[in-house]
C-alpha cells in the first residue's frame, strides 16, 4: 500500500533504535540536572548556558527537527520515567482539563516570559528551582496520567510553541516514547506531527482552534515586548506585565482582525504570525548572541544569520501552506466507501483466478474475461459502442478484427463464415456474437476488408448465358442475399433491386435500437459502402412495383418506368398484421416493422414528451419493442392476448420466469388482455381492453404478427396463400419467378425469421441460374434480444404426443430454466433460459439430428455436457 499522505508515527520508520534514544535521553537528562545544579551553585555559568545558548537555539531546533527535541527533552524523560518504571497510574485527564487544558501551558508561557525580565534572567537560583519544579511536575504528571497526557501533551509551557513551529518539520523524527500509543490526547502532536495543528483548527470543537489563534496572535507581540523592554528600567512586576499585556493583546487583536478581514484560513494566518514572531526573535537575538560569545562589534554573522532565518521561515511558510492545502483537499475528499466483509473472499478469488485477458483496441481497454463469454457480451458489458442483431452470426452487424490470439476463440461455424464472406471482410474478422473466449485475445472494432472479395473463385461459373437480366423485388436480407449469390455465380447479368424502402439493407432485427439509440440508421447498415457499386447491383430505392407482366417479363414501376427480367426473385417481405382495433391510426399509434417506423416513433415520443407506452403483443418483437421503449425512458405496459408471453418460443414455466424477469426490469405485463379500441384526443390517450378497462397511455404500438406482401404476385396470377407459394426449390408457379423470405410460403407456413430468409434466398438464387438446390426447413432458433434474458429457443418447445419426451430443469436460486423435447431419440426442440454456454451445443445437436439415446440417462440427470461436446465435435469437423 502507498505511504499515507500524512503518516502517523506508527507508520514511520525509526531513524535510531530505541536504545540509542534512551542513551541520548540519559545524556540530556544528566545535562539538565547538571545545569540545575550549576544554577544553584554557580549561577553565572548556568544562566549563561541557559539563556545565552540554549534558549536562543531551541526555537531553531523546534523548527528544524521538532521530533528530535521531543524525544530527548529532559522534561519528557522525567514525565515518561514513571511509565518506563511501571509506576504510571494511567488515569485520564479530567474533562475540565481536557476542555480548557490548553490554556494552562499558554498561560504559563505568557506568564513566564515577562518574568524573565524581573526574575529568571538574572536569578540563577530562581531559574534552577523553576526547572527542578518543572521536572518534578512532569514526573508527577507522569505518575498520575496515562501516556504523555500528564505533561508533554497537556501542560508543558513549550507545547504551544512546538505545535506552531513543529507542524512542518524539515526533518521528521519518529516519536520514540510512546510504545505503545495509548491514545491519551486529542489531535496528538506526537502521534501525527503534520496534522496535529491543522486538526485543531479543523476540529468540531471551535474552541480548540480559537486557543491556537490566541496563541499564534500573541507570539509576535510577546517577542516585540520582550526585546523592546529593557530590564533596567526599574519597573515593577505590574508595570512589566502591563506592558507585555498591551503588546500581546495588540497581537491577538491584530490576528482576529485580520482573520475576519482577509480571505485566508485561520490556520494559514497562524503560520504567518508564527513566521513573523520567529523572524523578530532572531532579528533581536543574533546580535545578543554575538555579544555573548565575542565582543567583535558589529558581529560579521548577524546580518547573514538574520537573512538565513528569514529565508528559512519563508520556505517553512510555503511548505506549511502547501501542506495545509493537501490536508484540506484530503479532508474534503469524500469518505471512502468500504465493502462489507462478505466481499473479501469473493474478490480475492476473482483477482487471483486465471481469467483470459481481452484487450479492445485502440483504447486498450483490458477486460479480465470469464472464459466462455462471447466477444459481443464483453464489449457490450464494457459499454463500448457495438451493434448487435441476431446474435447468431448471421446478420453481420458485429464484425470485429482479431488482432492477436485468434486461437483462443471458439472456431467460426458455417453461418458465421458465410456472413463474413457476404460482408467482404478479411480472414481476421469474427462476428463478435459467435466468438467465445478461452485465452488472451486482442481485438479491434474496425474489421479489415478482404483484399480480394471472395466472389466467383469457388463457385460454379454462370450456368445459363441466356439469363441477362435478374430483377429482385425487395432489399431485405432475402433480397440482398439473393442478389449477392446471383452476382457471385453470374458475373455478366444485370441485377436490379427494387424496393419500397428509402434505405439500403439495414439490420431489421435491430430497429428497436433506433428508438433508444443515438446513432439513427447510420449504424444499422449491413453492407459496406460501395458494395452495390462494386457488385454492379442497381438499386431502386423508394420505388414501388405496380405490376408484373409475366408475358413480357417486365416489372412495371410506380414511376411509370419498367425493367425487363429473365429471372425474377420476389423478396418483398411482410408488413405488420393489424387486427381491427377502433381508433388505431390516431397520432401516437404505431406498428414497428421498418426503420422508418422506429424513427417516427422516436420523433413522436420526443415531440410530445410521451411518458407511457402500451405495446400490444407479447411475441419476440413486442417484447423487444417494450424493452426499447423502456430504455428510451417510458413506462411500458405489454398486452398479451394469451396466457403467457412468447408462446411460440416458451412453455408455461419458461413464460412465467421470463415474465418475472421482465417485470423486474420495470416492464408491466398484462396477460389475457385484448385491446379493442384506442382512445385519442386527437393523439392517443389510452387503450380500452375487451374487459372494459382502460389503460392511459401516450403511445400505442401494435405488434401482432405479420402479413406477407403478396398483392403484386397475386395480381400477376401467381399461386398465393398467406404468402407466395413456393416449392422446395423456391420456385413459384411461374418457373422463372422465385420467392424467398417473409413473402414466401413453403409447406403451408411463412417462417418470418432471418436465418430461413437467408437460406431460402441462397437456394432461390442458385436455382434461378439453373441450379438444383433444395431448401430444407430446419427447426427455427430464436433469441430474445433483451439484456440479461439469455434465451435461446429451438424448434418445438412442448411434446406433441406421449411418445415424445420432455426433460425440464429449473434452477430456482438463479431463476434459470432449461428443457429438451425429444422425439424418436432426437432433440426436436429446446428452451435455454439463462444458459448461454449450453446454447450452441444444443443447436448443433438439433441441426445435426444427433441420436441422443446413448446419453439419455445423463441428460435425464441434468448433465448436458455431452451436448457441449457435440458443438465442439461439429466445429472440429468444420475446422
Amino acid at each position, binding site marked *: 500500500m502507498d505511504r499515507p499522505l500524512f503518516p502517523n508515527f506508527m507508520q514511520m520508520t525509526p531513524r535510531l533504535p530505541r536504545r540509542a534514544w534512551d542513551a541520548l535521553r540519559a545524556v540530556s537528562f544528566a545535562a539538565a540536572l547538571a545545569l540545575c545544579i550549576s544554577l544553584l551553585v554557580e549561577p553565572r555559568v548556568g544562566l549563561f548556558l541557559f539563556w545565552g545558548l540554549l534558549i536562543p537555539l531551541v526555537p531553531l531546533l523546534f523548527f528544524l527537527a521538532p521530533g528530535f527535541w521531543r524525544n530527548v527533552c529532559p522534561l519528557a524523560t522525567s514525565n515518561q520515567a514513571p511509565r518506563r518504571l511501571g509506576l504510571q497510574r494511567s488515569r485520564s485527564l479530567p474533562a475540565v482539563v481536557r476542555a480548557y487544558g490548553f490554556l494552562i501551558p499558554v498561560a504559563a508561557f505568557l506568564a513566564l516570559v515577562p518574568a524573565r525580565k524581573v526574575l529568571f534572567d538574572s536569578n540563577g537560583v530562581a531559574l534552577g528551582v523553576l526547572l527542578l519544579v518543572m521536572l518534578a511536575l512532569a514526573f508527577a504528571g507522569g505518575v498520575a496520567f496515562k501516556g504523555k497526557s500528564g505533561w508533554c501533551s497537556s501542560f508543558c509551557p513549550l507545547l504551544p510553541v512546538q505545535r506552531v513551529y513543529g507542524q512542518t518539520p524539515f526533518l521528521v523524527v519518529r516519536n520514540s516514547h510512546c510504545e505503545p500509543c*495509548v491514545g491519551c490526547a486529542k489531535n496528538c502532536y506526537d502521534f501525527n506531527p503534520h496534522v496535529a495543528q491543522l486538526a485543531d483548527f*479543523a476540529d468540531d470543537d471551535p474552541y480548540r482552534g480559537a486557543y491556537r489563534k490566541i496563541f499564534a496572535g500573541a507570539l509576535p507581540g510577546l517577542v516585540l515586548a520582550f526585546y523592546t523592554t529593557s530590564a533596567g528600567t526599574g519597573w515593577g512586576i505590574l508595570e512589566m506585565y502591563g506592558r507585555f499585556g498591551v503588546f500581546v493583546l495588540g497581537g491577538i487583536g491584530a490576528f482576529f482582525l485580520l482573520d475576519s478581514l482577509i480571505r485566508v484560513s485561520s490556520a494559514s494566518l497562524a503560520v504567518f504570525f508564527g513566521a513573523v514572531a520567529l523572524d523578530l526573535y532572531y532579528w533581536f537575538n543574533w546580535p545578543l548572541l554575538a555579544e555573548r560569545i565575542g565582543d567583535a562589534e558589529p558581529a560579521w554573522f548577524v546580518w547573514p544569520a538574520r537573512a538565513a532565518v528569514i529565508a528559512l521561515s519563508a520556505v517553512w511558510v510555503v511548505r506549511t501552506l502547501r501542506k495545509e492545502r493537501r490536508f484540506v483537499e484530503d479532508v474534503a475528499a469524500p469518505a471512502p466507501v468500504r465493502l462489507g466483509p462478505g466481499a473479501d*473472499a*469473493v474478490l480475492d478469488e476473482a483477482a487471483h483466478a486465471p481469467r483470459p485477458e481481452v484487450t479492445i483496441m485502440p483504447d486498450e481497454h483490458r477486460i479480465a474475461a470469464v472464459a466462455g463469454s462471447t466477444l459481443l457480451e464483453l464489449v457490450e458489458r*464494457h*459499454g463500448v459502442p457495438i451493434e448487435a442483431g441476431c446474435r447468431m452470426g448471421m446478420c453481420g452487424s458485429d464484425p470485429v478484427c482479431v488482432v492477436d490470439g485468434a486461437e483462443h476463440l471458439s472456431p467460426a461455424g458455417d453461418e458465421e463464415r458465410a456472413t463474413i464472406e457476404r460482408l467482404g471482410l478479411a480472414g481476421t474478422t469474427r462476428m463478435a456474437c459467435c466468438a467465445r473466449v478461452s485465452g488472451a485475445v486482442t481485438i479491434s472494432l474496425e474489421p479489415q476488408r478482404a483484399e480480394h472479395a471472395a466472389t466467383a473463385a469457388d463457385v460454379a461459373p454462370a450456368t445459363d448465358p441466356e439469363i441477362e437480366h435478374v430483377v429482385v423485388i425487395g432489399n431485405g436480407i432475402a433480397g440482398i442475399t439473393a442478389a449477392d449469390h446471383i452476382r457471385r455465380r453470374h458475373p455478366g447479368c444485370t441485377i436490379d433491386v427494387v424496393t419500397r424502402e428509402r434505405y439500403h439493407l439495414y439490420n431489421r432485427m435491430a430497429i428497436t435500437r433506433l428508438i433508444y439509440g443515438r446513432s439513427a440508421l447510420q449504424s444499422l447498415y449491413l453492407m459496406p459502402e460501395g458494395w452495390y457499386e462494386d457488385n454492379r447491383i442497381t438499386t431502386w430505392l423508394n420505388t414501388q412495383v405496380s405490376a408484373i407482366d409475366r408475358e413480357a417479363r417486365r416489372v412495371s414501376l410506380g414511376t411509370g418506368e419498367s425493367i425487363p427480367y429473365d429471372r425474377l426473385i420476389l423478396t418483398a417481405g411482410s408488413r405488420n398484421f393489424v387486427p381491427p382495433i377502433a381508433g388505431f391510426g390516431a397520432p401516437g399509434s404505431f406498428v414497428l416493422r421498418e426503420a422508418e417506423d422506429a424513427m417516427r416513433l422516436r420523433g413522436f415520443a420526443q415531440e410530445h414528451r410521451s411518458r407511457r407506452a402500451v405495446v400490444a403483443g407479447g411475441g419476440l418483437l413486442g417484447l423487444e419493442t417494450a424493452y426499447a421503449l423502456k430504455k428510451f425512458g417510458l413506462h411500458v405496459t405489454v398486452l398479451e392476448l394469451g396466457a403467457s408471453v412468447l408462446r411460440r418460443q416458451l412453455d408455461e414455466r419458461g413464460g412465467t420466469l421470463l415474465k418475472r424477469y421482465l417485470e423486474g426490469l420495470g416492464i408491466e405485463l398484462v396477460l389475457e388482455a385484448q385491446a379493442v379500441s384506442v382512445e385519442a384526443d386527437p393523439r392517443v390517450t389510452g387503450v380500452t381492453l375487451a374487459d372494459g378497462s382502460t389503460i392511459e397511455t401516450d403511445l400505442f404500438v401494435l405488434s401482432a404478427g405479420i402479413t406477407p406482401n403478396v398483392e403484386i404476385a397475386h395480381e400477376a396470377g401467381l399461386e398465393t396463400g398467406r404468402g407466395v407459394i413456393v416449392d422446395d426449390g423456391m420456385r413459384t408457379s411461374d418457373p422463372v419467378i422465385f420467392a424467398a423470405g417473409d413473402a414466401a410460403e413453403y409447406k403451408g407456413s411463412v417462417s418470418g425469421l432471418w436465418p430461413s430468409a437467408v437460406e431460402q434466398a441462397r437456394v432461390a438464387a442458385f436455382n434461378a441460374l439453373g441450379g438444383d438446390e433444395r431448401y430444407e426447413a430446419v427447426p427455427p432458433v430464436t433469441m430474445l434480444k433483451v439484456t440479461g434474458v439469455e434465451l435461446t429457443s429451438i424448434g418445438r418447445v412442448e411434446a406433441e404426443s406421449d411418445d415424445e419426451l420432455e426433460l425440464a430443469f429449473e434452477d430456482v436460486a438463479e431463476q434459470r430454466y432449461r428443457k429438451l423435447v425429444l422425439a424418436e431419440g432426437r432433440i426436436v426442440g429446446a428452451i435455454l433460459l439463462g444458459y448461454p454456454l449450453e446454447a450452441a451445443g444444443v443447436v448443433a445437436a438439433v441441426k445435426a439430428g444427433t441420436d441422443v439415446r446413448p446419453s439419455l440417462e445423463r441428460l435425464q440427470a441434468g448433465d448436458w455436457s455431452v451436448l457441449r461436446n457435440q458443438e465442439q465435435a461439429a466445429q472440429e469437423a468444420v475446422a
Partner: protein
Amino acid sequence: MVDELLERRVARYLRDVAAEVPPSRFSEYFAYPGTEAARDDFVFLPDRSKDDWARVLGHGELLRFKAGDLVIRAGDDDRALSIVIDGSLEILLPNARGEQHRYGTIEPRSVIGEMAFLDGRPRAATIRALTDGDILRLSFESFEVLSARHPELGRAILLDLGRILAARLRQANDVIARHTH
C-alpha cells in the same frame, strides 16, 4: 464519489474555511490503536453473504489497469458502479487554471462512481491509477439485469448507496450549517 456539491465544498475550503472541515475524515489521522473509528456509515453492503457478492461479481466485469491509466475520465458518460479490487488510484480535479490536482486517493476494496451510477450524469472527476490493479465494474444496465434477477439484492444495493449518500449529505449539511450560523 465527487459531485458538484463537493466541488463547491472544495472551493469553499480552499478559499478560507479549513476550520470548517467535518471531523470524520481527519479523525483517520488520529486513529489511535484500539480506537479506530468504526465507520459503518460508509460500508457498502455490510451484511451480505458471499453468494450475494458472487452475484454482484458475476454481473460486473473485471478490468485490469496499469499505473498511470485513466480509469475514469471527467466528463465521460459512464454510468457504472466500480469496486477497486487491487491497487490504488487517485482522484484528480481541475483547478481554476485547468491543472489537474490530486484530490484524495482510493484504496483497494472501496466503491467508486456511486453518484454517476445513481444520477446518470457525467463523471465529475478523473481517476488515475497509481499502481497496477483490478477493478470490478458494474454498468447500470448490468445492475438492472442483476436486480431483475435478484430483486431483493438490487433493492439492497440501491438502499445502501442511498444510505451512504445520505450520510455524506448530512456531513455536508453540518459543514454548511456551521459555516452559515
